[in-house]
């Protein structure tokens, strides 16, 4: 492996994931967390937002308002929609030229596709699906990730290579509010890719479900117990004005979109109310919902581990319980009336 002079590498970069002008919320979460990490970095280093896309001036300005000291903008139609090969080449060129110390990327499907590709040619150390970040006494990034289903948190370091890269699970960190008075520099960089070099073409792209479960106050989550029938969960979610989410099992079965998956390889949520419907309670799932205020479990197996991790539980057929619960809340115009 090539020897790397780690002292040549400076700054924290945050990849701002953007699709047709819509920014993935995790990007702003990472800017906020990176701003905290900057406290542990030398004063001459900057927090840099990396914006790759087409017509992204608004995104660049928002990145300043959300905490970036500098925004590197690669603006060209070649970057819309996202493709791994042109994004990867652009990133590689920028890393070679600017030598970032740390690069943080959201753990979305796009972020993982991108990170896995760009870490290799830059010989970066890349840690996946992190839920904790820190900087140690020697200035190395400490990337904490749940391992072995979430029973333990492993701290991964990359001492001899740069950049130190990590994908971070959406929903873990709080974004900063926009502050239009915040100052920073927007710098347009040379576009390093040409269309005739690309090896992929996006023929169709359809994104209809833009719900963000990381932001929800109330969540009703479906597990393997729903056996393919999402309707009781959807009805209960509607009655509670909640978002529908899911365990990995329900996502892998194809019953629900991956974007609504809670826990390992999905998202971290912290609602006021989390209702787990037909979810057994595997640790991989629990570590994504442990920060919920109140957890309710509905399951027909009295020995399901979820009951140990719930405030209130009921053992019963989920289809019956959900519908009865819907009726209980719908009968009461004011939910407080169910107390009467």
């Amino acid at each position, binding site marked *: *492996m090539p020897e790397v002079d780690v002292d040549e590498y400076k700054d924290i970069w945050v990849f701002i994931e953007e*699709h047709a002008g819509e920014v*993935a919320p995790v990007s702003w979460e990472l800017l906020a967390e990176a701003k905290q990490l900057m406290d542990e970095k030398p004063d001459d280093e900057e927090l840099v937002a990396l914006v790759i896309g087409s017509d992204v001036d608004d995104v660049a300005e928002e990145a300043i308002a959300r905490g970036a000291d500098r925004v590197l903008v690669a603006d060209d139609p070649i970057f819309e929609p996202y*493709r*791994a090969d042109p994004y*990867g080449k652009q990133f590689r060129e920028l890393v070679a030229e600017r030598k970032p110390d740390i690069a943080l990327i959201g753990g979305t*499907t*796009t972020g*993982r*596709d991108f*990170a*896995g*590709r760009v*870490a290799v040619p830059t010989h970066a*150390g*890349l*840690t*996946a699906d992190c839920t904790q970040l820190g900087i140690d006494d020697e200035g190395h990034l400490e990337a904490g990730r749940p*391992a*072995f*289903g979430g*029973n*333990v*948190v*492993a*701290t*991964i*370091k*990359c001492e001899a290579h740069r950049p130190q890269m990590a994908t971070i699970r959406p929903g873990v960190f709080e974004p900063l509010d926009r502050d239009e008075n915040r100052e920073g520099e927007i710098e347009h960089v040379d576009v390093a890719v040409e269309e005739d070099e690309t090896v*992929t*073409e*996006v*023929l*169709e*792209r359809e*994104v209809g*479900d833009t719900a963000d479960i990381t932001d929800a106050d*109330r969540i009703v989550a479906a597990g393997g117990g729903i056996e393919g029938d999402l309707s009781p969960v959807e009805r209960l979610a509607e009655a509670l004005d909640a978002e529908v989410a899911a365990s990995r099992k329900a996502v892998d079965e194809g019953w629900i*979109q991956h974007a609504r998956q809670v826990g*390992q*390889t999905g998202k971290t949520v912290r609602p006021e*109310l989390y209702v787990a419907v037909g979810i057994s309670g595997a640790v991989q799932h629990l*570590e994504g919902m442990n*920060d919920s205020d*109140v957890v*309710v479990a509905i399951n027909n197996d009295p020995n399901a581990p979820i*009951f*140990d991790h*719930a*405030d*209130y*539980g*009921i053992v019963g057929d989920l289809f019956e*319980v959900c519908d009865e*619960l819907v009726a209980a*809340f719908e009968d*009461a115009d004011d939910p407080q*009336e*169910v*107390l009467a």
Partner: protein
Amino acid sequence: MTDNWTVVVGIKQVPDEDDVTIDPDTGTLNRAEAAAILNPPDRNALEAALQLKDEVGAEVIVFTMGPPTATPVLDLAVALGCDDAALISDMAFAGSDTWPTSLTLAYATEYFDADVGIFGEETTDSSTGQVPPGIAAHLDWAQLTYVEDLDPRPEDDQLVATRDVEGGHEVVAADLPVIVAVGYGDNEPRPAGLHRKLYAETEFEPIELDAEELGIDPDEVGLDASPTQVGGMDTADPVEREQKVVDSVEDLAAAIAEEGVV
């Protein structure tokens, strides 16, 4: 156009995660007693490859990087319909993180002169999903990750994929050669046929390849070539919960209402 696609599939033997336990006193993991199984997402990778074989007559070669005790996963893949299998094994690979792992698998993909390399979305024992894009990067090939469905277009030397993106789907055409990571659960893996199973278990022997045969410099792989190291392990703190099990839906509704969260 490329005649007769060669498709390679990379698979891995992993401990059955249901069997991995944690010693509550020491916090150490007990993986030794866990049964060794085929990484579950690799089932979907094998199925996607075998569908390409059915559709365009591709030759499918499966390989795994691991110790000689990993050969049962190759036998299984051959039983399912793979034409040939290779065990990629060398002490030099020990301790590899995703960087040298993807390098090794990239060399293996080139060794078989593949047009398409198909992998599972991730392995359940490390759960990074970084290896397939890493292989594509090492080879400088196109990559298609989180793939739900493949549509081969040999007349154009292209593979078209429907892939999962946040909140929706996209259809992407990739020029060959290409690396594919199939979404976990996104197809229905076939069962093994009886004759094929007998063949795999009694007659079939996998090819064995080491670092030298693949043309890999031992200094490029293994622990010393891995940019990341595990700095420590902490057990996650359990969250205290009320754990009240109520008897009726009315009681449950009342408890939720009382918390003031609806």
